[in-house]
């Protein structure tokens, strides 16, 4: 065919038409023998992904094609799902997994793919977080975020406090005791704090409770005593002068670097994000022990198979392989993801002594926290509820707002937003 003007234009029109209809069809992303997966940076182990990119174990001829989404991860996932076209086969989901529950029909029920048989390998509360109130297994556990008390031995020594982890755990079994300890530390070393800011305490306390903001049957309980007590505890720490008032990330790093933050109740990932990155010079000075007030969990993520997936069986084979106890132990070494499979906790990869923590086997502390955590129900509306409370807490610390007024304002805002969202 010679290229005349007419054939050129006709070919162009045909191509445009094909492109437009392509947009309209329901499809999943990637080639026929490729399972596409979206995740964010630092959520999986590169070696394992590299293996799966050559071939998915047990499914010859199927390969994995993973994309690390930079910023706005959730928005991109929602956009892909809303477009119903070029949707990835597998998506990673953060600890806000419950916000996807109203749209659980977009995902496969993993129990139908054989998840039920693997349940015994996982922490029960973590497993339950991936199950919708209707009983559908929507998301498969990846890592968890058990909490513990991090503390600086040099400051503790100056204050004349025994630095042995077991002794510290005995000295501060609850938050009252920790505040008393904080006062003592502040006397010995002025400026010492036990949290970076007010929401740090509130978040840590809420992470220990067996219930959060809503019940499984959709009742709002965020105005009840357990929340108010966490709120008051956070206010008290600030009034005692034990908060560093560091509201943004550079200040948060600074209080770690300059040694003002001497004890902090946070999740396992903070070891890396906090002291190891911000204050490498404090190597050997940190220890970890059981948190005052009990075991808790902050963060952790999931994997889900979208309903557009071209081969759900292969996708499930892949995620169950990736999240096996052995491979989760592998992932603890590289992006420091704490396994959701108790069998990993005795793996030599995890139980090696950590020189940053003075040779302490920190996994024991976190494994204990992960196993003891009572587990709370996360509702689809938790982020709507949490935002006003957190920002009112910041108002108390940063602007000196009256706590009762702040609490009332937060509750009013929550009622308004929940009724609009149709939750109450």
């Amino acid at each position: 065919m010679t290229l005349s003007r007419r054939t050129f234009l006709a070919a162009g029109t045909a191509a445009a038409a094909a492109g437009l209809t392509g947009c309209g069809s329901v499809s999943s992303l990637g080639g026929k023998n490729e399972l596409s997966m979206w995740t964010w940076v630092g959520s999986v182990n590169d070696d394992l992904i590299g293996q799966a990119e050559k071939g998915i174990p047990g499914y010859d001829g199927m390969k994995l094609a993973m994309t690390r989404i930079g910023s706005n991860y959730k928005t991109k996932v929602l956009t892909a799902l809303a477009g119903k076209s070029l949707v990835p086969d597998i998506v990673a989901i953060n600890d806000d997994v419950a916000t996807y529950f109203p749209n659980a029909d977009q995902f496969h029920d993993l129990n139908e793919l054989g998840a039920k048989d693997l349940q015994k390998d996982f922490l029960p509360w973590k497993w339950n977080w991936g199950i919708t109130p209707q009983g559908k297994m929507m998301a498969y556990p990846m890592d968890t975020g058990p909490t513990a008390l991090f503390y600086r031995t040099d400051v503790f020594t100056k204050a004349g406090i025994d630095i042995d982890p077991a002794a510290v755990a005995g000295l501060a079994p609850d938050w009252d005791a920790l505040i008393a300890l904080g006062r003592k530390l502040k006397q010995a070393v002025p400026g010492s704090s036990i949290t970076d800011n007010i929401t740090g305490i509130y978040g840590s306390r809420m992470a220990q409770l067996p219930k959060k903001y809503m019940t499984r049957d959709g009742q709002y309980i965020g105005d009840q005593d357990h929340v108010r007590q966490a709120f008051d505890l956070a206010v008290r720490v600030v009034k005692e002068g034990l908060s560093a008032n560091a509201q943004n990330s550079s200040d948060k790093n600074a209080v770690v670097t300059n040694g003002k933050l001497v004890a902090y109740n946070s999740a396992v990932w903070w070891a890396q994000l906090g002291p190891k990155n911000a204050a490498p010079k404090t190597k050997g000075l940190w220890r970890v022990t059981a948190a005052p007030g009990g075991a808790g969990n902050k963060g952790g993520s999931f994997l889900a198979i979208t309903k557009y997936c071209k081969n759900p069986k292969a996708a499930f084979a892949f995620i169950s392989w990736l999240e096996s106890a052995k491979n989760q132990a592998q992932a603890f070494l590289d992006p420091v993801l704490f396994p959701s499979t108790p069998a990993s906790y005795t793996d030599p990869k995890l139980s090696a002594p950590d020189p940053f923590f003075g040779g302490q086997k920190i996994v024991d502390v976190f494994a204990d926290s992960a196993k003891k955590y009572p587990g709370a129900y996360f509702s689809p509306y938790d982020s709507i509820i949490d935002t006003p409370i957190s920002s009112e807490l910041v108002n108390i610390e940063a602007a000196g707002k009256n706590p009762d007024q702040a609490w009332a304002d937060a509750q009013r805002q929550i009622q308004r937003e929940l009724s609009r969202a149709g939750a109450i």
Partner: protein
Amino acid sequence: MAVTSKALPTTISATATQDKPPNKFRQALPQYTAVAPFFILFAIFGAFPVLFSIWISFHSWDGIGQMKWVGLEQYHYLLTDATFWKTIANTLIIWVLSTVPMLLLALVIANALHNATRFRTFYRIAYFIPNVTSVVAITLVFGSIFSNNFGLLNAFLKSVGVGQVEWLTSPWGIKIAIATIVTWRWVGYNAIIYLAGLQAISQDVYEAARVDGASSRQTFWRITVPMMRPVILFTAVTSTIGGLQIFTESRVLFGDTSNIGGPGDAGLTIVSYLYQSAFIKNQFGYGAAVGWALFILIVLFSIVNWRLIGGTDDERLTRRAARRVERRIAAQNAKKEAVDVH
């Protein structure tokens, strides 16, 4: 298209053809085809999203599931939403704090650049560089400058004995910090535009002024500024549109996803609120409604700007001239009356 080129002629020629004038559409078809790509792309990527956002703003939608028609509910909620009004106040305060000093400073810089004799290109590039630097990088740097406890600025203030200012937690501190970043980033850009305007003014006018014995200050206020009015109007309107859409600065300064406006939402701008509603809380309908409220606001402010600074030269001159003539006539009349009375 194959259809139009083949089917059309046969049907036409079958009926009455020969003496009919040639089909205008067919004649213009090549031209239409040539410009079509733009309109097709514009329809898909320009017009459709705009129309779709109007459509979404009448719905309640979480991004994936069914869209639920709620009529004007989102707008009703918007008008009674204290946070929304707060974001408008925040945005306007930041806008005034940044735009006024920015444009004044730009005019001064442009004047200096205009009169500079050495290293002109160097200075022009130097002033323009902030504008082409990544706003995220800039904001990170400013974040460590303004940082409350350990920032450079507070360290300096403490060293001279003034004490520290809570730049990133107090309501005014936050706004000043954001306004400073905006000013720093856009002052060079506006200065370059002013410089272009300055160079377009004929030297004859200045020479005439010099002959008449005008001082340099008089020349600046009586000649430069009035002659620059169209350029000033342009920068005022673009700064208004930009200023009402401030987003990145507060977003990066307060990196948390849950509280992107900083303590007390003092740095929460309209666009941050839109972003927070749509992309953090997944209330796309409400986000779209906020977007349209912002659109209306920008239109209003552009009109106000136009009225304050703009209008066509002719109109304004004739209006002023007419007023002057009226005043003179009135004065003469008054004088005449006074004479008549006596």
